[in-house]
């Protein structure tokens, strides 16, 4: 069993990317580096593990604002809000896309944990809002039905 500290020590290059993504408490903010490994994960649990967390547990404090049915999977509006104190990062995951992570945002002090964007969905499935607040990972899930996939030609 790898500890969080041990994991971080063994993956120096990743640390800068994690800091940049706001998934770790920033000691010093270095130049941003895109977290390739995170965008290659297939499951939320694997992503959380990669980011040095455990769980995640479902939370009623996190909400996804999105349609129940989206006609066009290429453009699905997703809004995420968190009522948790110290919400430092928000990620949007699409369960059945080729890679599960669509986007992650770091939320500095003074920015509200309330944002909207648009993502592609290959098919009907769950969308997860993963939130890191107070060092813990929690999530909310919502199933969105797609009548036209977003990854086809």
């Amino acid at each position, binding site marked *: 069993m790898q500890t969080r500290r041990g994991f971080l020590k063994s993956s120096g290059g990743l640390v800068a*990317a994690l800091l*940049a*993504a*706001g998934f770790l408490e920033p000691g010093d*903010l270095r130049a*941003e580096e*895109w*977290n390739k490994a*995170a*965008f290659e994960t297939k499951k939320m649990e694997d992503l959380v593990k990669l980011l040095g967390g455990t769980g995640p547990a479902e939370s009623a404090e996190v909400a996804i604002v999105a349609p129940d049915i989206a006609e066009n999977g*290429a*453009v*699905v*509006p997703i809004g995420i809000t968190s009522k948790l104190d110290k919400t430092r990062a928000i990620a949007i995951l*699409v369960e059945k*896309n*080729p*890679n599960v*992570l*669509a*986007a*992650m*945002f*770091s*939320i*500095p002090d*003074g*920015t*509200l944990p*309330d*944002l*909207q*964007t*648009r*993502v*592609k*969905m290959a098919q009907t499935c769950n969308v997860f809002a993963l939130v890191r607040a107070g060092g813990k990972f929690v999530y909310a899930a919502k199933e969105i039905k797609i009548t036209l996939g*977003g*990854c*086809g*030609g």
Partner: protein
Amino acid sequence: MGNPMKIRAKADGDLVEVKILMSHIMETGQRKNQAGEPIPAHYIQLVSVTYGARTVLSAQWGPAVSANPFLAFKFKGGQKGEKLKVSWTDNTGDSRGDEVAIG
């Protein structure tokens, strides 16, 4: 370089509501053209929004963000008339930054 972004930043008291529409193809790399050849991935990876020296939002994106990405969020402490800067970098190394005055 890409085309200019459309940015709207509106102050309501202490709170600034930001809406951004970027112009980018956001090609996933998973699609094929009519000849059956894969279309190379081309998508924004890093986004940052700064107010003076303060970063008010930063993001890492994958190819599953929709084409011509839309982003909306709110931050506290912005003053009317001050500048807000949005910049992105994509997987080919291309980047773009645009500024808007908070209205």
